[in-house]
């Protein structure tokens, strides 16, 4: 039992409840408290990362109920990595939002914190049904956040997003029911024990349940046939919300990693590596679709939204191949792409604010204010996203390419990833040169100058691409260890043996 594990859940919960009651308090007080909550959450995530780095599993059993009978939170290297990634992204998005985007809705900070709470539960939980609950918590907050901001442009994408996710939740429940009806448990460690023992007619039920689960996680992660809701929803969302949503697709990827490596991993008997042969071609098709969308996008935010889909495809391809090196490479790229995409959303918003009625559309417009600063940020973000040296996206992609073993799969991965990266470079250079270089004479209403908060937030989030290169050694060591830990499912199963009563360590 380790009570620290509840901190990333409790901190945003308490902060969010406080915000819910403070809707009419002065905005400076609400902002200070909300930002302090996010900062505390980042501190707790870093503490958990340091704890998890010794390679052991820590659990927190609610009500001291022995797993698999009670609900447990489980901390391992992967969960800690996701927590820190989310907390860092959230802090910068939050700083950006207090630059003005949080006005107009008294509950913005509350929703923001509840969203973080849902994400943190999803990363920490060791129970399939609790994962469903976490998804619902983060989704209902995200519905509110997606609709944040004035105007009517978000209604239709928001409606599509909500309806799709409600259907996804229904499918999730059906698959959970199918798995429970055969195994009689929903604890992930216990499932990893029970699934290899299934035989007879139960096998096809669990198989169907597992594949339906992949559909649900695929919807969250936005893989190919289920990705068309994403560009409209993300490009219409307020900038800090869109940037925070960069992590939402990664929740789907996290769930795929957790469930399919642990429950349907190499040791799962007849169900070993369920669905992974489907995932590889789908991942490459998702990558190709994202590149086509990026080439055809008419605004900067749509371009960045398609970049989210590109990164999902790039991440899932090595995961589906299942090698340890590929997993480590994917985790490195996961960090890089999440922060970069978040930074690009923030930069696009700043650009849109400086260009009058041209907004972030990729068209020529009169010369904008602060062009040098914004164009440098966009350049850094685009280079990192497209995977050009010397920034972090390049290293992520090189590691992914290196991890593929020789064969047809390597040929497919190399050709699709390299062609995709090349076309992404074209998409970014087209957008950047039109928006920043080609200017026409004309009158532009003098926009508000950039304030310190938004510049710092956008700049810092983008600069993480450089920081990741400097710290590439330690990060790689950590992701290597994470991949090794994920491939050793036996150690996870041992949490079932944790003694409960009277223990306090």
């Amino acid at each position, binding site marked *: 039992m380790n009570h620290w594990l509840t901190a990333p859940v409790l901190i945003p919960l308490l902060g969010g409840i406080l915000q819910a009651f403070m809707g009419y308090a002065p905005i400076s007080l609400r902002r200070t408290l909300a930002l302090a909550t996010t900062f505390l959450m980042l501190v707790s995530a870093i503490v958990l990362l340091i704890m998890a780095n010794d390679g052991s599993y820590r659990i927190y059993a609610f009500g001291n109920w022995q797993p698999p009978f009670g609900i447990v939170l489980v901390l391992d290297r992967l969960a800690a990595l996701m927590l820190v990634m989310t907390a860092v992204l959230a802090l910068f998005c939050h700083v950006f939002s207090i630059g003005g985007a949080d006005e107009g809705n008294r509950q913005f900070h509350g929703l923001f914190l509840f969203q973080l709470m849902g994400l943190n539960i999803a990363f920490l939980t060791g129970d399939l049904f609790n994962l469903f609950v976490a998804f619902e918590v983060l989704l209902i907050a995200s519905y509110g956040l997606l609709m944040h901001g004035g105007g009517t442009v978000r*209604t*239709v994408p928001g409606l599509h997003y909500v309806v799709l996710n409600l*259907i996804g939740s229904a499918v999730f429940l059906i698959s959970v029911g199918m798995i*429970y009806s055969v195994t009689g448990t929903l604890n992930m460690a216990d499932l990893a024990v029970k699934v290899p023992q299934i035989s007879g007619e139960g096998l096809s039920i669990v198989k169907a349940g597992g594949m339906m689960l992949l559909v649900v996680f695929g919807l969250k992660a936005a893989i190919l046939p289920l990705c068309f809701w994403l560009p409209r929803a993300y490009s219409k969302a307020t900038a800090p919300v869109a940037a925070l949503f960069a992590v939402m697709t990664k929740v789907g990827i996290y769930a795929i990693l957790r469930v399919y490596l642990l429950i349907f991993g190499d040791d799962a008997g007849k169900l070993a590596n369920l669905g992974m042969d489907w995932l590889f071609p789908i991942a490459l098709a998702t990558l190709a679709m994202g590149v086509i969308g990026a080439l055809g996008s008419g605004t900067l935010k749509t371009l960045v939204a398609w970049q989210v889909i590109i990164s999902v495809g790039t991440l899932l391809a090595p995961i589906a191949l299942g090698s340890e090196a590929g997993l480590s490479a994917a985790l490195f790229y996961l960090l890089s792409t999440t922060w970069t995409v978040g930074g690009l959303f923030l930069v696009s918003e700043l650009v849109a604010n400086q260009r009058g009625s041209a907004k972030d559309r990729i068209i020529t417009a009169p010369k904008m204010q602060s062009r040098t600063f914004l164009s440098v940020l966009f350049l850094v973000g685009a280079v990192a996203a497209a995977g050009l040296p010397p920034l972090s996206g390049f290293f992520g992609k090189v590691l992914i390419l290196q991890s593929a073993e020789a064969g047809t799969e390597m040929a497919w991965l190399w050709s699709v990833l390299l062609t995709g990266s090349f076309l992404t470079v074209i998409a970014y250079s087209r957008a950047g040169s039109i928006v920043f270089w080609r200017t026409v004479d004309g009158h532009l209403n003098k926009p508000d100058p950039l304030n310190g908060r938004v510049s710092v937030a956008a700049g810092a989030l983008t600069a993480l691409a450089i920081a990741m290169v400097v710290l590439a050694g330690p990060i790689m060591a950590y992701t290597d260890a994470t991949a090794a830990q994920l491939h050793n499912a036996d150690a996870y199963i041992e949490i079932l043996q944790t003694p409960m009563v009277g223990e306090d360590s």
Partner: protein
Amino acid sequence: MELVFALVIGALTSSGVYLILRARTFPVVVGLTLLSYGVNLFLFSSGRLATGQQPIIGTAASYADPLPQALVLTAIVIGFAMTAFVVVLSLRNLADNEDDHVDGKQPYKSPAPEEEEEVTGK
């Protein structure tokens, strides 16, 4: 009992899916509700159907599994909240676009793309 139960779940789910595929928001909302009813019943049956059994292992030869009931309860609460939200969102869609089509407008009435005015957070 199993046959009736399965038929009810099937009827609810298929009508739900049919209604979700409609083009107006009201049938979609009703379809989502029906789908969630079907899912809840399905989840309930995952502990096997039994009448007059105790929910405790070991005191009798067979038992009624209490866990799916807890799961269903959670799912009902969440589904209720989500339905309330999607109803409000549909009304907002109707008010914003003066049309209850799920895309905000009829497909055949879409002339040149109009400029979308956006006022962020002010």
